[in-house]
């Protein structure tokens, strides 16, 4: 369920104040009841609540999948705009998070495809990762927590795109194997098998960056 929009968020702020009019002209200094013109627009407030609840995970997926903060910010913007335009198509037969992830994945894959075509970059042979020797059970140790993001990004960058995506999705506790399977168009058993290999590949690569 979407949480209410926090006061002070961009969405709440937008609805409380008509464009190009200073705040002091629309609200009494002592803060009185809002006028009819200040009544919040339900559609933006509702969407604001959706943004508040899911933006962190959508941005994180875009960030680690694309590996570039600026691209991730643009992608997150585009994803929420697409979601807003398609809100009428959301039938509620999947969770809102899953629906947003689907838009994000398609958007990011398109971006990567365009980027790869432009730069003529080929992914390493995925079969190389089948032989990763690290155990996925071994604990991962980091000395400096502030370096965690950089090391994770470096590690994800060299993993096959599918492994990267599966690991990022399974890290979200709201996502079940079945939902991930639907999102990635494969069976839940296939997801489990690939995740096992993805974890091993991640650990093997992560340890190289120690």
């Amino acid at each position: 369920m979407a949480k209410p929009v926090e006061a002070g968020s961009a969405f709440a702020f937008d609805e409380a104040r008509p464009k190009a009019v200073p705040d002091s002209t629309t609200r009494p200094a002592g803060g009185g009841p809002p006028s009819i013109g200040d009544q919040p627009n339900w559609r933006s407030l509702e969407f604001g609540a959706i943004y508040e609840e899911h933006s962190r995970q959508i941005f994180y997926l875009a960030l680690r999948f694309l590996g570039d903060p600026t691209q991730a910010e643009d992608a997150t913007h585009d994803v929420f705009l697409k979601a807003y335009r398609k809100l009428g198509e959301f039938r509620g037969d999947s969770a809102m998070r899953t629906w947003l992830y689907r838009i994000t994945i398609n958007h990011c894959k398109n971006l990567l495809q365009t980027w790869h075509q432009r730069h003529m970059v080929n992914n390493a042979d995925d079969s190389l990762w089948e032989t990763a020797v690290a155990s996925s059970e071994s604990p991962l140790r980091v000395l400096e927590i502030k370096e965690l993001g950089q090391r994770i990004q470096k590690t994800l960058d060299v993993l096959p795109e599918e492994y990267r995506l599966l690991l990022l999705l399974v890290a979200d506790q709201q996502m079940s194997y079945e939902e991930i399977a639907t999102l990635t168009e494969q069976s839940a058993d296939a997801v489990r098998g690939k995740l096992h290999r993805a974890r091993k590949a991640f650990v093997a690569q992560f340890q190289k960056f120690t």
Partner: protein
Amino acid sequence: MDPKTAKLQQQQKEETVEQTGQHQAAREFASVEEMLREDAAQTEVPPALARRVADSIAQEPKPPRSWWQRWFARR
């Protein structure tokens, strides 16, 4: 005390402090997922993004309402 020995002891003491400091900052994750969750929790969405999305949405025409919105509106 021999100055060389004192210096060596001081050096060893400093190294121990450094190592202890590193040990305190170290963090172990039981799984890849746990590590990624910690990373996600530390990742902040750029604050200007909400405003940017809100501005873009303000320029959009009203989207069609979904079946469940229409259904609730009738009740």
